[in-house]
Structure formats: C-alpha cells, structure tokens
C-alpha cells in the first residue's frame, strides 16, 4: 500500500486508484523479501571479490534514488530504480562481496519507502545498528565509470593475445598499440620484427602487420 501510493504518480498529479497496481507493488515487496531471505540462507556468500558491473548498478541506484527522494521528490522513479537494482541482484553472482553490498544498499534505499519490510530484513541479515540508525549511502563516482572491454590482438591476421582497456579508449590507436606491444604472448611474435602497418577495429581488435 505504501509503495503503491508512492509509485503511482508524481506529487503534482492526482492519484487514481488501481487494484492491479496495488497488487504489483505487493509483488515487488515480496520479491525483495524473497531475494534477501534467500541470500541470508545462502552459505557461500562473500567468497569472491568485486563484481564491477554489479557495483556500477548499485552506485547508479544510490545516485538516482538520492536525487529522487532527496531533491526532486519523484517517488515513482525512485521505486523504478529500486526495481532495477532488484533485477540486477537477481541476475548477479551471490558469491561476490559486491552482492552483499548490493543487498545492504537495496535495504537502505528502500527504508524511507517501505520502512517495516526493510528494517526487518536488515535485522534478519544480522546487521547492527537497526536500519533507522544507519546513514544514507553515498555513491562513489569511481564505481560509476563504465567498464573495460577486451580487444583481440592479431599479428599478421592471426589471433595472438587479448588486452583489456577502458571502454572510452577502445578505439584509441596509440593506447591499443602500446598495450598490444606489452601483451606477453603477442610480444613473442613481435620480437625483433618491424611493425609495418596497424589496423584498428574500435572496440574489437587491433591487427599488427609485421615483417
């Protein structure tokens, strides 16, 4: 019910009651409940490190919900953001530490909107102090940076190695060339040879023609 009235419309619009939507918000509440309780029961959590993609989803949610609840009072978009984060967690790898960060963040962000449900889950998760005493999460700019891509390194048209570069630089000839020359396996095929020509397919591959 709380979620329904918040999700339904921006404050300046009039509210229209809709049973199906109330049901939808109920389902969202239960989805969060299931997601978190299943995670509590999951015995292999925190065994792997950081998942950059999931972390980016988490911090994007923090940034957007902070704007929606703290600045623009757009409750419906705040709930959409939380649904997105819930989806990301459902598809995420529960082994990672990042997953734990994601579950905790989801509950913190949900607290103003669905305080009882999130306070209860927070306690079941074994977190102290109680959720109403926990500060609002702060997003990290660094976690928001869009990731890296893998570029294939060819020598004379044959695949010899892979390099990982920031997405923003995946078409930068100088960066790719420098990285390709440092790549261990490719370096074997380049040793003592002269690079005659460099072909770059941005985001995909770099081909070094040598003689």
């Amino acid at each position, binding site marked *: 019910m*709380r979620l329904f*009235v918040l999700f339904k419309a921006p404050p300046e619009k009039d509210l229209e009651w809709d049973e199906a939507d109330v049901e939808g918000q109920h389902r969202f509440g239960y989805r969060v409940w299931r997601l978190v309780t299943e995670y509590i029961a999951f015995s292999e959590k925190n065994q792997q490190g950081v998942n950059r993609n999931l972390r980016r989803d988490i911090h994007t949610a923090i940034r957007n919900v902070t704007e929606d*609840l703290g600045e623009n*009072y757009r*409750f419906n978009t705040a709930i959409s953001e939380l649904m997105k984060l819930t989806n990301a967690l459902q598809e995420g790898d529960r082994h990672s530490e990042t997953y734990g960060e994601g579950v905790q963040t989801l509950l913190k962000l949900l607290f103003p909107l669905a305080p*009882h449900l999130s306070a209860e889950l927070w306690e079941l998760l074994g977190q102290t102090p*109680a959720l*109403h005493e926990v*500060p*609002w999460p702060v997003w990290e700019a660094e976690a928001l940076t869009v990731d890296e891509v893998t570029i294939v390194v060819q020598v004379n048209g044959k695949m010899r190695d892979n390099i990982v570069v920031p997405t923003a630089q995946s078409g930068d000839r100088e960066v790719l060339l420098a990285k390709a020359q440092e790549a261990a396996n490719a370096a074997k095929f380049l040793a003592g040879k002269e690079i005659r020509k460099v072909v770059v397919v941005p985001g995909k591959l770099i081909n070094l023609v040598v003689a």
Partner: protein
Amino acid sequence: MKYNPSTVEAKWQQIWAEAGADRGSEDGDRPTFYALGMFPYPSGNLHMGHVRNYTLVDAIARCRRMQGYRVLHPMGWDAFGLPAENAAIERGIPPAVWTHQNIAQMRAQLQALGLSYDWEREVATCDPDYYRWTQWLFLQFWEAGLAYQKEATVNWDPVDQTVLANEQVDSEGRSWRSGALVEKKKLRQWFFKITDYAEALLQDLGTLERWPEKVRAMQANWIGKSLGAELTFAVVGHGHTITVFTTRPDTLGGVSYVVLAPEHPLVEVLTAPAQQETVANFVAEVARESERDRTAEDRPKRGVCLGCTALNPLTGETVPIWIADYVLAEYGTGAVMGVPAHDVRDFAFAQQYGLPVRWVIAPKTGETPTGAYTEPGVMVNSGDLDGMDSVTAKSEVVRRAEAGGWGQGRVQYRLRDWLISRQRYWGCPIPMVHCPNCGAVPVPTEELPVVLPENVAFTGRGPSPLSTLKEWVEVPCPACGTPARRETDTMDTFIDSSWYFLRFADARNQTCLWARSRQRLAARQPVCGGGRARDFAFVVFAVFHQGIARSGAVGF
C-alpha cells in the same frame, strides 16, 4: 520464511516509538529539515488522499533523517468546524467528545501506517492550549488595525431562526434541516483587512519559483489585479453620482447603460415610482441567489431598469440606469458601465433587453466589428479621440477624467477583505467584549484563553448557542468595568489552521506562541504535502506572516 506484515509492522513501530526515533531534536549542529503535511480535519477516518500525502512526506522525512538532518515531522488536528456541531444537533453528542473520539481513532490509523511523526508535538486547534494563541493572534491584528467590524450578509433560515453556513444550504437554496428557502440577512461581522496586502501578495508570488505554475496562476487569479479607473456619472435630476470601476476607460464613449448591484444603497433612492414594484421584486429574488450562481458564465444575466438616467461624463449623453444580478455590491464600487460593443457579457445583456450597441474601437485591419470587439484597435465615433490608438486613448481618458474631476486611475483587486466571524459554537471564540460605553474592547492578553464553554445545548434552532449562555456572555468591560457582553461569534476555522506550522516548532510553550530559540528547527522553508485545492490557503498564511510581522510581536 514468509513475510507477515502485521507482526513485523507492529514490532518495528514499537521499537521506533521506544527509541524516540521520530523525535525532532533541538540540539546539535546538524542541519534541520521541516517535513510538514497538511493536518487533517478529524472526521473519524483517513481517506486515500491523506494516506498518499502523508506517506510522501514521511518518505522524505525518513530519507532526510538518514542523511543526518534533524527532522521536524509533526502531526495535528484541524479540529474546529461544522461537522462536530452537526453531529451534536443530530445525535446529541457534545462536539468536544465527538472530536476527541475521532482524533483518537485517526491517530491510531496514522500510527498503524508507520508514519514517523513526533507525537510529542501533536496539537489540536480546539484545545485551549492552542486556541489561546489563535486569540492572541487576533488581538495582534486588532492592535495593528487589521481587524474590524462591518455589516455583511449571512444565510438566514426563517423557520429555525438561525444563521446557516454555505454548506448547510442545498443547491436549491433551501436549509438542510428545515427545508425553508434561505434568505439573506445583514449582520455586523468581523473582517481581516487582507486587501491592504493584495499587491504585496502578488509580488511575492513572483518569487515562488518552485511552486507549480498552475498553483501560482490560481493564486494570481484569486488576487485578481486589474488596472483601470473609477469614473463618475451624474444622475439626471438628482444630486447623486454613481461611481463605476472599469478596466477599459477607452470604451467610455460606447457606454449604453450604467448598472448597479441590486444591493447598491442608491437603488432605493433612484428608482422611479412607476418601477418601484418591479425593482423590489427583482431585488428580493436576487437576494436568494448565491454569488456563484449570479456570476456563472453559462447563465443568462438578468436585470431591470430603474427608470432614471445618468450623464456620460465624456460625451454628455444620457444613458439609462439598470440593476442586474451579475453586479456584486462587494466588488469594486458595486456599479459598472455597460459597453455592449466591447464586452461579451454586456453584449449578451444588451441583445436580451434591446439596448443600443455603439462601437468606439475598430480593428486596425479596417474591418467593421459585428459582435463584442474586446481587442485593442483604433478609436472611432469618439469625437476628437478618433484615430487614436485605443491603448493610448485609455490613458488619455483617465487624464481627462482626473483633470475634469470626474474620475481617476485605479488599481482594483478581486481579493476582498476576509470575513472571519461565524455565528457558530464549535470554533475559536473571538476575544472581544462589547461595552455600551467603550465599544469593542479586547480581552487583555493575560486573561487568554477565552475558554469555549462545554455545557451547551444544541437544537439547531435560534441564535448561536454561545449567545444564550448568560453566565458566559455577561462580563464586566475590561476597560471600564461596566456590565458588557462577550462577542459570541467564533472564528473561521481557516484562521486556526493558518499558523499551526509555527506552533509545531514549540508546541508546548505556555508563555508564547513560539520562542525564537525554537525557530532553528523550523527555520527552513517547510516541504509541504497537501491537496492542490487547498493551496489557496497559502495567501492566508502570507497575510498572517505580514500581519504578525507588522505588529512587531514576533520577528520573522
């Protein structure tokens, strides 16, 4: 593991209450935030609109708390008003009992929703601890010359011999209880002089950048500023003159008739003997209609002529004098000039009653107008004004009026002074005493509150229950000691609710409305959740701010 909402909700509500998690802290250096929902009328049940607004504000409050703000998030009750009195008349339950039962029920409903209110700051406008300060505010207005008495019309039930609120009159103009046709009656009533602030309010609207455009437009329309002139028409064969307000002095040459409100004091004086019966019937008929009906756009306007004429001060021509239902006595001068050629409503009126139409402004395109032409254009049929741009002619006519002593430029506002007195029981008593020697005398502030007596019988008939309580009404004059009478009118409940957001900052203070030291928690502009329909109350807030500031009693 299943989610069981009822046990989980009850559990956390108890934990938060015991921890005092929702209390607004007065201490510390952390920033403050005021999350204010409009407090409800305690009808007994929350409706969806309440639930929505309060949930939105609660989400904001909770988020701000987590962000480290000291949050003021209070709740209270707009508890005076007619429904409690009606319940008393219909079911014999005392208004105070009915109201407090409803408050208890709604408080439980709000608590069950888990709304994070600081209940230690709860106020109800019907509690003496609260209305003592409503009365104090009234006295500040009185001292500043902003509260005054004058005659105004009320709805009168001739069968029950009682004053009715607008809500007690049905769509056919009959009393809710007796079924009698409701009459209009004049009573001496209390007003707040909000018209002094019309321009300031309009200017302030411009600074409210974060308000939705729609709401600002509504407010501006309500204030209703128009630039124009007051022009004086001499009545032929009488020593009297009629002053009209017009926003279109440029159309003065096109006047076909002058029209007064049926309640205009000159109507009786000017009516020709042959017209007396017709006029009297028409006046009585209009007296039964509501203001809204009289001015509704989709309704044909009706009028009768008085059988006398007035002189057009610009052209020297004579025009007939009429009265019509669409002219209101309280607005402007209670008289207007009828220019069918350049006003849609006047055109319809002239068609209906066969009055002449004379165009004095023509479109610049050179076309000949046929209906009411309301746009600017070029002056025609206007003697030496012919050929002049009508916008220029507007100021030229005002200049000539001022030079000739028959008029002057004026700014007019639709906003009228606020009629604040009600002939009802369940409201805040107006803290005044009427003395045969001294006139209206304020109750000294140290004697506040003037407590609303509770040993009252309700019949729904006759005078206000308060005025029949001899032991309450009869008091010595505070100034000279002569036997005098308390004011028995109570205040419009909008006054109670116009300042509640201030009291929340210092709800338990017994020595003043709120102490300056407590301002810090509420100093930030509140975030307000409430229905748009009630946004116009903002104007009232603003008037209060200015009125209080003007009295110098509280520094804002």
